[in-house]
């Protein structure tokens, strides 16, 4: 009985998800024709990066319950790896993207191995420390690795980072309209990431992730392999995060230690929390809301970070399930109220089970 109703719930939501996805794709295709301003389009590309990173953090924490704070470190690792492959081996950016993502994945697997015996806040502390150590080692790197002209260049690029190692090729292809080309690429990246994430979340592996999150002891007792599942989720999320890092470096034609700063990590956490932890559309909703709020707060200038901090704290206190959770509550409330909902108890059960 329960199995039947939850099964129905999932298929019902799959239909809804497909509709949402089609509407979003249609919107994404028409967007470059509607938006004239380069600034706005540039901000939208940036927002797509945030949404991609947040969706992978959501996979790691929201769905699998692994509170990793190394998300931006993995993103930076992918970006740096891509930039360094281009810079030191003279490869085309497109050829360096996948190796960069794989490097980020390997890094993440090592982090995952170190975290394997830990739970909860211990994972958070260790990953935060790893990210900080990476930042410090890059910023304090002053030893010359190669000489570029008369300028000394450190192996990690030091506090300046890497620039001018190539781009996505849109400038030569589309000339003045290159930003639209980059937008199309990043939007495709985001779409592919979301589709893959959806498949993972709905697959048996995704159920194993969730089981481990809800009750590790029971999940293990029922035969879920924690070692395998945890490494898998670290690997999957890191591949897409690292890939996004590579595209980020290629889009801005630069990568520096700034992406490792605490405020960037907080922005990603804020996006996921405001949108809704553990909900598939949460990171996207969170990105739209927070990027808009951020743009509005730009008027307030220096109060931006202050406002962001307060938004994080307030939204976790007022709506622990995020905006998507609140919308879900509202929809359920309205359905229960409306006379149409004289449906069978089965369907009501399906709705509440969701």
């Amino acid at each position, binding site marked *: 009985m329960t199995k039947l109703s939850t099964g129905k719930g999932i298929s019902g939501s799959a239909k809804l998800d497909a509709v949402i996805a089609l509407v979003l794709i249609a919107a994404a295709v028409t967007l470059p024709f509607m938006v004239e301003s380069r600034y706005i389009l540039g901000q939208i590309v940036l927002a797509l990066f945030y949404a991609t990173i947040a969706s992978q953090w959501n996979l790691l*924490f929201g769905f699998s319950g692994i*509170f990793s704070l190394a998300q931006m470190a993995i993103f930076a690792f992918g970006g740096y790896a891509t930039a360094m492959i281009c810079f030191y081996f003279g490869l085309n950016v497109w050829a360096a993207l996948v190796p960069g993502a794989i490097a980020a994945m390997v890094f993440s697997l090592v982090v995952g191995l*170190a975290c394997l*015996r*830990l739970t*909860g*806040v*211990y994972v*958070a*502390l*260790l990953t*935060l*420390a*790893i990210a*900080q*150590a990476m930042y*410090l*080692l890059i910023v*304090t790197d002053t030893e010359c690795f190669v000489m570029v002209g008369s300028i000394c260049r450190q192996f990690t690029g030091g506090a300046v980072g890497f620039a001018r190692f190539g781009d996505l090729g849109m400038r030569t292809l589309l000339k003045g309209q290159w930003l639209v080309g980059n937008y199309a690429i990043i939007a495709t990246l985001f779409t592919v990431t979301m589709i893959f994430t959806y498949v993972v979340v709905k697959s048996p592996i995704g159920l194993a992730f969730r089981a481990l999150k809800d009750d590790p*002891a*029971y999940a293990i*007792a029922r035969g879920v392999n924690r070692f395998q599942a945890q490494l898998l989720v670290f690997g999957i999320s890191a591949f897409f995060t690292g890939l996004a890092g590579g595209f980020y470096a290629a889009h801005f034609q630069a990568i520096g230690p700034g992406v490792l700063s*605490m*405020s960037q990590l*907080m922005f990603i*956490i*804020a996006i996921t*929390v405001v949108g809704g932890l553990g909900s598939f559309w949460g990171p996207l909703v969170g990105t739209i809301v927070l990027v808009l709020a951020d743009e509005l707060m730009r008027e307030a200038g*220096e*109060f931006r*970070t*202050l406002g*962001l*901090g*307060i*938004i*994080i*704290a*307030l939204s*976790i*206190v007022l709506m*622990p399930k995020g905006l998507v959770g609140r919308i879900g509550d509202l929809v359920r409330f309205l359905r229960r109220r409306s006379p149409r909902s004289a449906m069978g108890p089965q369907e009501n059960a399906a709705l509440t089970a969701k």
Partner: protein
Amino acid sequence: MLDIFVSIIVAGLTTGALYALATVGLSLVWGSMGMLNMAHAAMLTLGGYVAFTASTSLGLPIGLGFLAAIVAGAVAGGLLYVLIVSNLLRHDKSTFESNVMIATVGIGIALENAILLTYGGQPLKQPLSVSGALVIGPVTLPYQNILIVAVVLVLMAIVALLLGKTRMGRAIRATAQNRDAAQLLGVAVNRVYFQVLVLSGALAGVCGVMVSSMTQLSPPLGNDPMLKAFIMCVVAGLGNLPGAITAAFGLALLEAFVQFVAGARWGFPSLLFVVIAVLIWRPSGLFGRAQIRRM
């Protein structure tokens, strides 16, 4: 040779004392409430700046400046309970651990930024510091370092007495051991939470004054000690006070030694390496006890 050795020891002991103070504040809150206070760094910074304002703008004597920092930290801790923690405790208990962490991250950013907006980003000199040094033969001991170690030892003794001898301390320890049992036996658990956060805030205030007297006042002042304190908590096992103090001094000495031998930039990564090694060997910390969970 001897003077180099002594200066490493002095530097290690002084930073160890500071780390111990930061660690105890964190560990106390974790041990009794299961709450990781990410706003601890900002509370540290707040203490340092309040002491600065009290003794420069208001011209209060040094003792009162110190007191102001303690009061500011305690008030911040109290507000944190009233505004955030008490509300989060009403939600689902299973999500409290991660929710409170994210919420305090937000509060920490907001507080640090508020300090930046009020005082500006340029480093300021902490007036609550003493100059001069005690010279014994080839060994030089700055008074500031002696003062820090002394103050920390006194505070540790006070905290130990509070926890060991008073009614409040018994309630805190009971809550830490078993929250539900304590509540059944009539301990007002919510009041205990409030007291613990106020106490930890006050300790953070003092710690902020001490840290800034060794370096300078700047808005991200508390971040470095807090990150190190996290590491020490993890090594010792979260919530274990004597273990935390031991780990703080031990790791600070190690850091000072590595910084001298291999250069300042390897201090932190070497600490990290130790932590990872310890965690792989003993996942609940050196002094932590593995918990057996019933299903």
